[in-house]
C-alpha cells in the first residue's frame, strides 16, 4: 500500500516536471503564473537541465570543470557549487517576461565578498506552456 502510494507520488512529480498533463483532457501550462515568477524561471532551467549548451558562442568553455559538451545542469550546477556558506553576499536572480508561449528569461548566480565578485548565468527563451527551453536561444552570461 505504502509502496503503491509512493509510486503514485513519483508519477505525479514526473508528470508535473514533464509539462502539460497528457491525456487529462485539460492540459495545464508549465508556467501558470502571470506574470511569471522567479520560481518559474528556476523551474524551467531545472526541467531542461539535460539540454546541451550550444557550441561556437557565449557558452564555449564555460563549464567550471571543463566538461566536454556540458548541459545546462552541468553549467549552473558548477556555479551553484561555488556558493558554499561563507561571509559575503550570495544569491540567485531569476526572472521571465513576455507572452506565455515565448518567454524571455534570465537566471544569474551571484557572489559579492570583497575581492570575490562574480555573476554567471543563462539567458534563454522558453515556451511557458510546454516548459521547453529553445536550445538555440541559450546565451551563457558572465565575465571574469
Amino acid at each position, binding site marked *: 500500500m505504502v509502496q503503491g502510494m509512493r509510486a503514485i507520488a513519483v508519477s505525479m512529480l514526473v508528470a508535473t516536471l514533464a509539462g502539460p498533463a497528457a491525456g487529462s483532457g485539460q492540459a495545464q501550462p508549465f508556467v501558470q503564473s502571470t506574470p511569471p515568477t522567479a520560481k518559474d524561471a528556476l523551474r524551467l532551467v531545472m526541467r531542461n537541465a539535460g539540454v546541451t549548451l550550444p557550441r561556437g558562442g557565449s557558452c564555449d*568553455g564555460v563549464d567550471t570543470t571543463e566538461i566536454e559538451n556540458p548541459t545546462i545542469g552541468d553549467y549552473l550546477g558548477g556555479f551553484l557549487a561555488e556558493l558554499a556558506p561563507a561571509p559575503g553576499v550570495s544569491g540567485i536572480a531569476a526572472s521571465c517576461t513576455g507572452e506565455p508561449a515565448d518567454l524571455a528569461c534570465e537566471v544569474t548566480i551571484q557572489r559579492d565578498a570583497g575581492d570575490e*565578485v562574480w555573476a554567471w548565468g543563462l539567458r534563454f527563451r522558453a515556451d511557458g506552456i510546454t516548459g521547453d527551453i529553445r536550445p538555440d536561444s541559450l546565451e551563457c552570461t558572465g565575465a571574469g
Partner: protein
Amino acid sequence: MAAVNLTGFDGLDIKNICGNGYDSPTENHCAHFVCHALDLDFGYTCKKAKGGSGSAANLRVHELFAKCPKVGKWADKPPGVVLAFVTAAGNVQLAAHTMSNVPNKHVGIFCDLFIWNYHNSLDKVSKETVSNFESRFKIAYGKSAALFFGTLPPGSNTVTVGPAV
C-alpha cells in the same frame, strides 16, 4: 595595434572605459578592463553581451589565458610586459594551456614592476605591487591561489606607463 599608456586608466570605473554599457558592478571586470586596454576582441565580448557601438573587448579570463602564446608559473615569466593571472593552482593546466572557468580567477597587466588591474570591490582600475596583488588574492581565493604569467596575445596594443597626458 597602438601604444597605450596605462596611467590613463588609473582610477577609472569600467563605465568610463567600456563604450558598450557593460558596466554592472555585480560582474567581474578584470578581463574586460585588460582587453579594452589591449584592444582584444576575440571570443565573448562586451559588445556581443550588450550590443552597443563601442569597441569590443573580451570578458573572460579563461579565454584570455588560452590566447596567450606562452603561459607559465610566475617565477618563470620572461622580462617585459606580461599578463598576471591568479587562481587556485589546480585550476590551471599548463601543458594543455587551459584555465578552468571557475569564478575565482583574476587578471591584470604587469608593467614596470606593478600589476594594473580592475578592483571589482572598489569599481576602479589601480596598480599594485606583485606581492600585494598575490596576498590580496590569497585572502580572497584561499591559500592555494597562485600567480601565472601569459605573454601578450597577438594584436595586443603595446603598453607603456608614464605621466598621464
